[in-house]
């Protein structure tokens, strides 16, 4: 269904292969359960493809159904040229995030894995295992909630000693329970604690993430959204050296003209000459 563009691109080849494997998986699940629903971005893609079908060349938008968003709501922009189709963009609508090629594959793998766990919720321990087994760039460490008091005290002492992050220190109130702390404060406390007490759990060359959870289980959608946010949301720009993502728009040649305009990839140098990547600078799609 997906066709290579002008010359061989290993990223695209890998995505196509992964996508075909996923579609085989979907077909097998449908044989067992006629009501089986694939991942919402795949549904969006199928909708766009179906629209494009016998239609003229051009771009088509597919959006996964808003009333069946158990794993979120996605849109896909597909371009048709003759009998060839190319994905131009995949977007998570809830988080307003564009999904890179590699992260798209991760989402499909994670969705296959969490499907094996029944229900709409997942245990934090299972969630962390699934991420660490399947996303090589991440190392998730689950914070042990039983250690929150010594962790809190340690973090407060370090911050007072270093005389920084006064806002955070103010929030660490001795009357508050672990559950009452804002999630950002819990994350900071957990990180300080892991760095101090469990440095052997950190893995070099990976993005080490300390995961804190106060609930016994987490909704699957929340889990996947959290992962997506970590991988390509705001924090991800600090891990450019590890998260070397390719966007679908990057796979279009930067000199290629679409409707008379030159396409500019998100990871390409910004045309203003700043030296920064387009996505962190002017973020212009066409010239």
């Amino acid at each position: 269904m997906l066709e290579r563009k002008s010359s061989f691109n290993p990223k695209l080849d890998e995505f196509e292969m992964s996508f075909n494997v996923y579609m085989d998986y979907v077909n097998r699940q449908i044989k067992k359960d006629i009501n089986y629903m694939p991942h919402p971005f795949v549904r969006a893609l199928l909708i766009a493809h179906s629209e494009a079908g016998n239609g003229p060349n051009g771009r088509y938008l597919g959006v996964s159904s808003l009333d069946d968003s158990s794993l979120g709501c996605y849109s896909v922009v597909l371009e048709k040229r003759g009998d060839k189709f190319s994905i131009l963009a995949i977007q998570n609508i809830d988080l307003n995030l564009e999904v890179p090629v590699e992260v798209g594959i991760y989402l499909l793998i994670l969705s296959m894995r969490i499907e094996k766990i029944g229900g709409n919720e997942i245990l934090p321990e299972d969630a962390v295992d699934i991420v660490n087994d399947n996303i090589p760039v991440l190392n998730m460490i689950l914070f042990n909630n039983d250690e929150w008091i010594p962790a809190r005290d340690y973090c407060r002492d370090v911050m007072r000693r270093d005389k920084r992050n006064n806002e955070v220190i103010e929030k660490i109130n001795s009357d508050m329970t672990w559950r009452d702390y804002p999630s950002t404060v819990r994350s900071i406390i957990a990180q300080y604690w892991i760095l101090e007490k469990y440095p052997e759990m950190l893995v070099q060359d990976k993005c080490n993430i300390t995961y804190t959870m106060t609930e016994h289980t987490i909704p699957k959608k929340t889990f996947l959204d959290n992962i997506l946010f970590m991988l390509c949301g705001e924090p991800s720009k600090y891990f450019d050296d590890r998260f070397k993502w390719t966007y679908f728009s990057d796979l279009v040649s930067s000199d290629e003209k679409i409707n008379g305009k030159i396409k500019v990839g998100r990871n390409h140098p910004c045309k203003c000459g700043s030296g920064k990547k387009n996505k962190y600078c002017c973020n212009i799609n066409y010239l």
Partner: protein
Amino acid sequence: MDSMVIREIEKITEEYFTLLEDYFGTIYIPGLDVSLQAFRIEKYQLASKMLIASIEDLQKDLFNFWEKHADRMISFINNSNIFKTTYCGNISPLNHNGFINRTALYVDTILIKEPIGYLMFTKPISTDEAYIYNIIQHAFNLFELKKLFFGEGAIPLFIIIPPIFDEKGQNEIYGIAEEYGTQYVNNVLESDFNEREEIFEYLSSINDLETIKQLIKNPQLIDFRGMSVEDYLMEVHENISGTFQNGNDFSIGKTLAFKIFGQFSNISYELTHAIGLNSQIIFDRSDYWDLYKNHFIFKSDPDTLILESLQQSEFKWLINYDMEKFNILRNEEELVQLRNILRKNIYNANNALTSEKVKYQVLSNIEEAFLDHTFMIDEINSKLRKKLSVDGLVVTGAAVSGLIPASLALLPLISTVTASYGIFDFVHQFSRLNKEKKELKNGVMGMLFDARTKK
């Protein structure tokens, strides 16, 4: 083998391939080397992860498949009076060095344990890369060989058989491997270990090449495949430590122990199958042949020695014949005939048979068969030449005489009829001789003859 039974076996096989194609069909590229395809997929880390996640259900599906079909398949095979061999060597028969071509000449069928379910048992201890590489290589290899699982009316060349699931069977295999493997290690190292654990404990503590080399007192018992001892040990170490998840911690001694017991486990597994199914055992690797002949209880059986001799370099030309064409041509009668040719003058009187003797006899038998084949073709050619010169003249003469004017009453009519009959008879016989010649050339012997003369 009854044609109904063949059909039943092929129905089960078709269901098996449908199951595999559901999982791997869309990523398989027909005609492209399967090792290259496996390598390509293994290099794509994300696609490999996707595949591993996707095929998790396959193990359960295969288990259910065999639960449904294992007993029937075993029963069909056991109740058939055919010459069968159980394959042992790689996970599935890769046709390196023409193993399939060489073996197909002598057997009715080759039994292969179902490879993918077998490989899936290794997932907990393998690295992702090794696991995916093996699964893809052997799944795709089966796709390449698919046609040979269907006999076009004859017994299929390959029949897939269920792996040994039950604990009793597994224990039996383990016991055989331990007994013969331990004995072998003691012979190689001139030691006196009692069991496998002792050997592993001892060898795991040694990580120095020179020390291991000194320990090997009888190197002639190991097939180093033309390499130096050091190169062989390093290659074994690299391959095995790269396969296991914690392989980086393995010493050179430990990987050697794994190699030896791996070989013995493999042979024991297939030997158990072969005994259970009343079949010969056949190997596509020289080291396995040596281990089997020299370190298991082995009788110099003519069939086993003939099968081994066909794997030798003297029969390399067998790689040249088209396996798919052979698959269409082969039938029970042809196979019996071929076996008789190869087996001629090979008797196991007083256990005097050796591999060398058998090899040279088989070579001689084939030469004789080729001479007969050439002689038969020459005879037909000679008959054709005569027919053309003698009958051709008669026909032409008759045709001419058929044109004699009607005024001579009956004579022209008779001559026309004679002419017509003559022409018909000529054409018929000429065509029959040509057909005979074509059948000879396009038959199995003709195909082998062409393979032998191909440069």
